[in-house]
């Protein structure tokens, strides 16, 4: 029998006097003890569908259709009834473990609050249950962790606490909205394993929202593929993966970054290199601000990158990848030589470095955050030209049009603002902004991580084409090992500021020497936890 069922659900948002539809007539149900995955790219309406079940949408949302839980109609139900369901019968896990926990409350307090609200447990009783829950979600030494604040936990631990909170009242249905997207691959594998085990032991149903088909294959009994607010295909997981019917499903399944980068000629000149690069942040204590130790964000990093070559930097969050990139761009202070085009720019003032900035450019992760929302695309792209005095107004316009054609955006759209573009288009704009200066070195800081899989494939292809055409040197930072493999000639594996392994891409991926690298690769390619690896 079905636990939760959606019947012709329509959700639209009020906007500027009109209604813009987000979900257009979705029907499916979740049976007892079953895992249903909602899959789709960003903007397909999968989160909106899930959140509408217990009316967690903003006030501007208009919900039509019918949502029933155990035969009870939820669409239009009173706030009091819904509150009884939320967190008790239906629990949620959200994407961001950093912001879903209140930073001012201890772990114990946050968990005990839920127990108090829904079960009336307090004091010793509550504490016992909290410890039990923390043990259940695999937190080591739960007694010692009770008084910890969220910032004292790692991302994976925080997500485990979130899961413990969701499970506290023994829910019948768990709605997980991209619960692992913000986590590192190794942690992601652990959390998924945990969720699967818990679901089996507690017999609850799960509605799992994700864009990652790899996860779906591991976890879900049935799949609903969403596109533009509609379910285009649904069925048993195995059938969908083995014989997809709808072209969109086929496209999603085919969206894998494949291939290898073009080889580099042996005589290619070195564009940038560093030796023993260190970025240490002092820890100061006491009245006199005495330095008692250092946070070693990057410790003794060493690499060199030649024209037309890509050096991939991989590692989990907090391993110092981005810090290394910012230091190479001279955007933060560091120690040790930073050699760009044969000049050691370490210690140069910002003014001295400025002329060199045309030769070294950076593309950031977040295509939404890296473009100034109040400038038109042509202003954004042309800004660097103005700074470096490359051409007057008319030729800047020509350069902008040329570069927009090159990265695959219609130049006619150059007078629009960034918010009118999709994530992939924005990332192309960001690449155009960097490329318009014709740099020799391009630092790419997770340029594909915030994008949908299908868009990722296109961006990787674009980067590859640009590299071959302009003999670009890439410093490519990513936690996504599949993308790194498709782009990199050489790979550096970083862990807590140290380089644990470095070498040719083929060698690292096919025969990783370090256990850490092995764990990363297992997690990334098989979504499995590698036993015995300390991560």
């Amino acid at each position, binding site marked *: 029998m079905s636990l939760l069922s959606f019947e012709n659900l329509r959700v639209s948002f*009020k*906007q*500027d*006097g009109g209604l813009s539809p987000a979900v257009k007539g979705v029907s499916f149900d979740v049976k007892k003890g079953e895992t249903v995955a909602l899959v789709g790219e960003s903007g397909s309406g999968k989160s909106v569908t899930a959140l509408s079940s217990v009316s967690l949408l*903003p*006030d*501007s949302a208009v919900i039509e259709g019918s949502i029933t839980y155990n035969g009870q109609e939820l669409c239009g139900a009173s706030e009091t009834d819904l509150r009884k369901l939320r967190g008790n019968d239906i629990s949620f896990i959200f994407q961001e473990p950093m912001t879903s926990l209140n930073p001012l409350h201890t772990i114990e307090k946050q968990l005990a609050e839920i127990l108090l609200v829904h079960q009336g447990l307090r004091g010793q009783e509550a504490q016992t249950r909290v410890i039990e829950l923390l043990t259940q979600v695999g937190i080591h030494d739960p007694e010692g962790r009770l008084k910890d604040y969220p910032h004292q936990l790692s991302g994976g631990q925080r997500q485990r606490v979130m899961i413990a909170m969701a499970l506290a009242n023994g829910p019948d249905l768990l709605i997980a909205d991209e619960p692992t997207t913000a986590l590192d691959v190794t942690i992601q594998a652990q959390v998924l394993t945990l969720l699967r085990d818990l679901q089996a032991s507690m017999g609850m149903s799960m509605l799992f929202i994700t864009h990652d088909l790899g996860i779906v294959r591991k976890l879900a009994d049935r799949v609903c593929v969403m596109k533009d607010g509609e379910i285009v295909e649904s069925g048993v997981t195995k059938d969908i993966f083995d014989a997809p019917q709808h072209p969109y499903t086929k496209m999603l399944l085919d969206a894998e970054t494949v291939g290898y980068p073009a080889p580099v000629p042996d005589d290619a000149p070195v564009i940038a290199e560093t030796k023993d690069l260190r970025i240490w942040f002092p820890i100061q204590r006491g009245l006199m601000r005495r330095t008692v130790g250092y946070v070693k964000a990057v410790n003794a990093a060493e690499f060199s990158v030649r024209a037309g070559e890509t050096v991939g930097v991989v590692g989990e969050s907090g391993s110092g990848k981005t810090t290394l990139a*910012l230091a190479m*761009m001279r*955007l933060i202070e560091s120690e040790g030589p930073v050699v760009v085009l044969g000049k050691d720019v370490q210690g140069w003032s910002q003014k001295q*470095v*400025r*002329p060199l*900035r*045309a030769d*070294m*450019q*950076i593309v*950031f*992760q*977040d295509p939404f*955050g*890296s*473009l*100034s*929302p*109040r*400038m038109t695309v042509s202003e954004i792209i042309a*800004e*660097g030209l103005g*700074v*470096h005095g490359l051409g007057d107004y008319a030729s800047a316009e020509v350069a902008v049009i040329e570069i927009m054609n090159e990265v695959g955006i219609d130049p006619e759209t150059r007078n629009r*603002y960034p918010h009118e573009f999709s994530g992939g288009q924005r990332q192309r704009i*960001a690449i155009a*902004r960097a490329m318009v*200066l014709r740099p020799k070195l391009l630092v790419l800081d997770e340029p594909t991580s915030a994008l949908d899989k299908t868009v990722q494939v296109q961006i990787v292809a674009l980067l590859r084409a640009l590299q071959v055409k302009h003999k670009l040197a890439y410093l490519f930072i990513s936690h996504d090992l599949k993308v790194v493999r498709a782009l990199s000639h050489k790979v550096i594996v970083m862990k807590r500021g140290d380089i644990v392994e470095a070498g040719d891409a083929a060698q690292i991926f096919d025969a990783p020497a370090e256990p850490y690298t092995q764990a990363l690769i297992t997690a990334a390619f098989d979504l499995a936890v590698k036993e015995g690896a300390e991560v």
Partner: protein
Amino acid sequence: MRLSPLNQRRWRNFKSNRRALWSLWIFTGLFVLSLFAEFIANDKPILVQYRGSYYTPIFNFYPETEFGGDFRTEAVYRYAEVECLIKSGGLVDCFDDPEGVMDDAKDGIVNDEPIEKGWMIWPVIPYSFNTQVEGPGAAPSPPTMQNWLGTDDTKRDVTARVIYGFRISILFALAVTVVSSAIGIVAGAIQGYFGGRVDLIFQRVLEIWSSTPQLYVIIIVFAILGRSFWLLVFVTILFGWPALTGVVRAEFLRARNFEYIRAARALGVSNWTIMFRHMLPNAMVATVTMLPFIMTGAIGTLASLDFLGFGLPTSLPSLGEMTAQAKQNLQAPWLGFTAFFTYAIMLSLLVFIFEGIRDAFDPRKTFQ
């Protein structure tokens, strides 16, 4: 200049708030009218025709001798003698019987001789803010057909004083708001953008500065330099600018780690350009929502200083001073009511407008 889509949306949102839109129109109307207060309430005519030529007494100085009088001081147009001189073309008889001559001159002939008739156009209210109203009765005198809102305790027309007082309050508030926001934004921007030591030192300076007792400084400065409008504006700005600094600083601290700011730095854009082209537009939302408090605060500051007697020089019209008079003359309730309603209407209109602006800038608010 084309409004960006975002600002177009804000303007649409603002327009959909009827109360705010009406308040804006009414307030703008009142303010524009009060800018032309000299043509509405004045003790000089707007236009005079005398012996075929035109005179504009509001803009120019004309001695009485110009119109055939005796004194070389400025003509006092409201005196019957001067009025008679202008209307009859400068007949000497005016000094003996001005009313009779004026009656006689209506047909253009006095004592069988044709005269050059003249005329004067008076403002609606024939008093300026400092005109002494002549007539029977002790000051403050109650409202009459002549003085719509009565007179104050030195026999000056209250209506005229309200119009001029309204203008000076708004101008004062605008001047203080514009200048102190500009200083506050720059200061906050520098603090937030550079952060670190600059921020630390600046914060301490601000703490010391904002704990200085403003009232004492005003009293001391006025005692030494004498009271004046611009000195008061200066001193108010001196203590008013930190109001915005905190907000702008916080916005800049947040924005300086945004990726598009980093991208601009990686492009080699200079610090000032980054601050004012890339970051300021972000801080503007917070700034605009804070502005109402500064503006109404400035009006309140002026009112309370005037009320205490440390505000504008006595030669200027002031609503706060009228409030103080109302307190001392409880037997003359028209003073109190006038002051109360003037402030109530002025501040309510401003609050309604700013409420609309704040809602229009709120990205989460939806409008039907």
